[in-house]
């Protein structure tokens, strides 16, 4: 799991040298958004237990879960309240980010 983070960060570092400012900026955003989830779900999405890990699910399942929490069709204690704060683009970015971890 940690490897993924380091690789992504390293990839980002390289891209900064090569790519234009705008492209680099776009790259930085999904992982910042995703890092917001780590405080409850574990560093790089690898949970110590109790709360679900996020690093082993395909993107479409992450997106479905978040959307179901958001609509209320999936009951929860807290995720319904949190998911309502994220828009479609953010949910898609989170799903893609964590989904790519799971496939590795």
């Amino acid at each position, binding site marked *: 799991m*940690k490897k993924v*983070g*380091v690789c992504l*960060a*390293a990839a*980002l*570092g390289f891209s*900064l040298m090569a790519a234009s*400012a705008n492209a*680099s*900026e776009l790259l*930085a*955003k999904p*992982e*910042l*958004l995703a*890092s*917001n989830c*780590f*405080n*409850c*779900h*574990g*560093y790089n999405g690898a*949970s*110590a*237990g*109790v*709360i679900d890990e996020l690093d082993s699910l395909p993107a479409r399942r992450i997106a479905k879960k978040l959307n179901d929490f958001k609509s209320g069709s999936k009951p929860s*204690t*807290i995720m319904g*309240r*949190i*998911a*309502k*704060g*994220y828009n479609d683009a*953010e949910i898609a970015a989170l799903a893609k980010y964590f989904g790519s971890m799971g496939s590795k």
Partner: protein
Amino acid sequence: MAGAAGASAAALPLIGCGEKPKVVVIGGGFGGATAAKYVKWFDPGIDVTMIEPNKQFTTCPFSNLYLGGIRSFDSITHGFEAMANKHGVNVVHDMVTAVDAAGKTVTTKGGAKIKYDRLIVSPGIDFRYELTPGYDAEAAEMVPHAWKAGPQTKLLRAQLEDMRDGGLFVLAPPPNPFRCPPGPYERASMIAHYLKTNKPKSKLLILDAKDKFSKFGLFREGWKKHYSDIIEWVPASKDGKVREVDAKNKVAITEFEKHKADVLNFIPAQKAGKIAFAAGLTNQTGWCPVNFQTWESTIHKDIHVIGDAAIATKMPKSGNAANTQAKVCAAAVVDMIRGRDPGTPTTSNTCYSLITPNYGISVTAVYRQTDKGYMGVAGAGGLSPMGEGPKFRALEAKYARGWYANIAADIWG
């Protein structure tokens, strides 16, 4: 916005020198340690030095569980070894005594002068002792505040253990704004749990400087269910505000009454940590104004302030808030050093409190920068519902423990 303008100018000469850009972080708590680790996470090519006086950090979150006797002190204490060995952060155990914003240098007690390109300051809180006659650092050795975790927490626990059955524990929460808004009330809950289990004839009197508090309905619902014979809460409007402390005799003095306690836990009014004042980062409120896009100080350029010391509008002063602010700040610091415009990010805060070992409550919010400040997204977040049964409350208590394990690993792991 304000921060972005300076970014591109700062970046070029650094890269030109062939030297790594340097970020210095003051403080190894929830904000500082997260920021240090995440600057490296976002960009391993930046040199990060974190300066923290203590070799270990004891967290305020979950210190109430230690006070209640359901958690060990070791389990809430974390070292910095992983930050140094696994994440490449240069950890320096020293105390920053001065910041030269113009010369971009910090000076430590040990005599070191350390240069930075960007400085991240996460100094936590200090106490406004001048507001309460009879209460100062010396009095705190008799009447602990235990609002910075460590020896103070152990002292309060020892006093609680020594207390006779049938004794009176007086807890005096501070006025707003302060570190961890639900904290004093979780503490009351955990102390009450201990008393109910071990010293059932005892009472807990809360003398409050306020008329309302965080998770108000949820705490009062839980207290009614579990501690109706133990906890009495006195709001400021009913003479709850402690105006003076007689530390030697453990007496809390309000406008009309003197409350003699067996154990007195007075939590003073607060302000930003000392180094924030020394560095000139505070305004007239005693806290630090910042730009919410980058957490850069609006007073000093190239210095960012995060955590309890920062003025974050609606975002509470909490360890979890400091953690998410630190990530946004770290990403912005990297962007600015590399000459990119930081975006406008989203952060969140999640805060659990325990009322009994198996009865949890929560509040959460997702925050965005707005023209009115840093605000929760409308329609999202909020409190966990009232009137829920034991199953729901047990789940929240379980998730509280899951949160602690994961955030501790996210920061110090």
